[in-house]
């Protein structure tokens, strides 16, 4: 396992720039998610790390050594694809042992390590089975075992959970996490599902249109998004235009007080943002940062109720208790906790 550094990594396809000057450092043993909508360049980046695709410019370093001229088969960056998981003409054991066979390791040794690895992915005794006899989840685990058995310098997973149903997803997610922890393998996985990224990854690299938007620990994407777009991707569309003057924001619905140690935007035009789950619907008397909003819609969500509001021309979503009831058109008072107000740059 090694650290991975991407330096100004760029890839163009004709006139399209799929990945644009990407800079990223992945620590040894870290589990990183490449997150973004499809076509954002995350899989392209993954392929460049494996060497299956050559960058147009930029560099890739494993343990601070450039591997840009090293061919795929010598990099030790093993990729697990989302489709066509197993070699159909080989047994499960042959699949798992493939990488070891390529290294020229003795047959008994291969068998021993294959059995060991099948044990680890909870498929003991499956070595003689044919690939097509396994379920989707089992195939996924065999593919994982096949990658892990060669002790890759970096493990690359392309949408590893995309083709599994909900129960299997959970199981697989835990398996990946636990094995990754146990073996300490530097791992990068690609996903378009922000929840999956948050639950699995140590750090998330969010990409839009080939450009890295934010590279951070998961909770930062909720509490400290860098842009409106990042906030939107993490389901926060509650925005309110205002002007910062020190600890006070002037808005159309009145003054709001902020925690100056928390926010990063300087004085001037800003967008105020509070996550739906952070907005207080039952302000106590004397609370500051109270604003008026008109109810547009209420949707019962089982565990809570979701209310759509009009805040000075912006549409906000807030979460209330499941039993809460308001009438559409009613004016209600919201409280925005000082420590939960985050400021975004305008546009």
């Amino acid at each position, binding site marked *: 396992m090694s650290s991975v550094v991407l330096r100004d990594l760029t890839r163009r396809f004709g006139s399209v720039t799929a990945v644009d000057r990407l800079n990223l450092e992945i620590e040894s043993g870290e589990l990183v998610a490449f997150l973004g909508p499809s076509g954002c360049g995350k899989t392209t980046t993954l392929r460049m790390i494996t060497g299956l695709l050559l960058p147009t410019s930029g560099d890739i370093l494993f343990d601070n050594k450039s591997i840009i001229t090293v061919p795929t088969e010598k990099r030790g960056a093993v990729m697990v694809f989302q489709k066509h998981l197993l070699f159909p003409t080989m047994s499960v054991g042959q699949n798992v042992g493939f990488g070891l066979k390529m290294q020229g390791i003795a047959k008994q040794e291969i068998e021993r390590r294959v059995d060991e690895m099948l044990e680890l992915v909870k498929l003991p005794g499956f070595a003689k089975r044919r690939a097509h006899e396994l379920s989707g989840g089992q195939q996924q685990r065999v593919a994982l075992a096949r*990658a892990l058995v060669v002790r890759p310098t970096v493990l690359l997973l392309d949408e590893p959970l995309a083709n599994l149903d909900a129960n299997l997803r959970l199981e697989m997610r835990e398996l990946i996490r636990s094995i990754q922890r146990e073996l300490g393998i530097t791992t990068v996985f690609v996903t378009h599902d922000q929840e999956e990224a948050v639950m699995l990854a140590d750090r998330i690299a969010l990409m839009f249109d080939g450009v890295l938007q934010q590279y951070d620990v998961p909770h930062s994407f909720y509490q400290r998004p860098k842009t409106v777009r990042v906030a939107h991707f993490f389901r926060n569309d509650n925005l309110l235009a205002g002007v910062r003057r020190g600890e006070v924001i002037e808005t159309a619905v009145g003054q709001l007080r902020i925690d100056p140690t928390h926010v990063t935007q300087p004085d001037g035009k800003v967008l105020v943002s509070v996550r739906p789950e952070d907005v207080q619907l039952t302000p106590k008397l004397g609370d500051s940062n109270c604003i008026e909003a008109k109810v547009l819609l209420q949707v019962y969500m089982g565990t809570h109720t979701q209310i759509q509001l009009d805040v000075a021309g912006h549409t906000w979503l807030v979460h209330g208790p499941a039993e809460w009831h308001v009438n559409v058109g009613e004016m209600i008072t919201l409280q925005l906790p000082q420590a939960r107000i985050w400021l975004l740059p305008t546009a």
Partner: protein
Amino acid sequence: MKKALRWVILIGIVIVSIAPILPQFIWSFSHRWLFPALLPTTWSTEPWEYVMTPSSRVGEGFANSLAIAVVVSIFSILVGLPAARALALHDFRGKSAVEWLLMVPIIVPGIVATMGIHQVFIRLNLTDTFIGVCLVHLIPCIPYMVLVMSSVFANYGTDLEDTARTLGAGPLNVLRYVTLPGILPGLLVATMFTFLISWGQYITTVLIGGGVIITLPMVLFPFISGTNYATAAAVSLIFVAPAVLVLFFTSRQLGRESSVMGGFGRL
């Protein structure tokens, strides 16, 4: 129960494949078979004796046809496989033009194309040679190889090869352990196709081979215009023998690997 059903189906297939050539078989042993007799009234091994004589040139034609078809199949693979892969998996300028051009030898009547090719071959000194005949057979064979194999490649994709690369397999090992085993059933079917296309070529062989190379169709086809059905039947049985073997072989392959059926999608 399931096994019994399988046997019924198997026997059914055998009957259906043998039925069309059964009358040929009877004809080839007939001396006199006039309407409305159900079977020949006089039997004879004369047609087969004729087939065995050097005069019939059946042995010579068979050997030449076999040698040509084998060489043509090998070259179809060598040329068609990389082309099929490129067409299936890569985008490049003029790809649709290449795809269209590939269809041309299948659409254009053979005789029209062959006349032009004949003149070119004369200028290149390729007529009346074994190589020349093989080359002219390649013209209708390669498109079939490319069309079948490009769908096989498209079906198979590159993910497995890429997986193998990242697992430490060099290009040769990828070819040996992943690509070839994966496309093998499709490749077998495509090779059978090209073999049979070459096997059945007549006018191209006549023009380019110039009578120096005698193939089985050149021996057989005149008999179809003749009136001696018994001899025609004996020669045609020898002519269809490889086709029946190929049919048997490919149907087994098709039964085993349903993925190969993908190869017919584009035909």
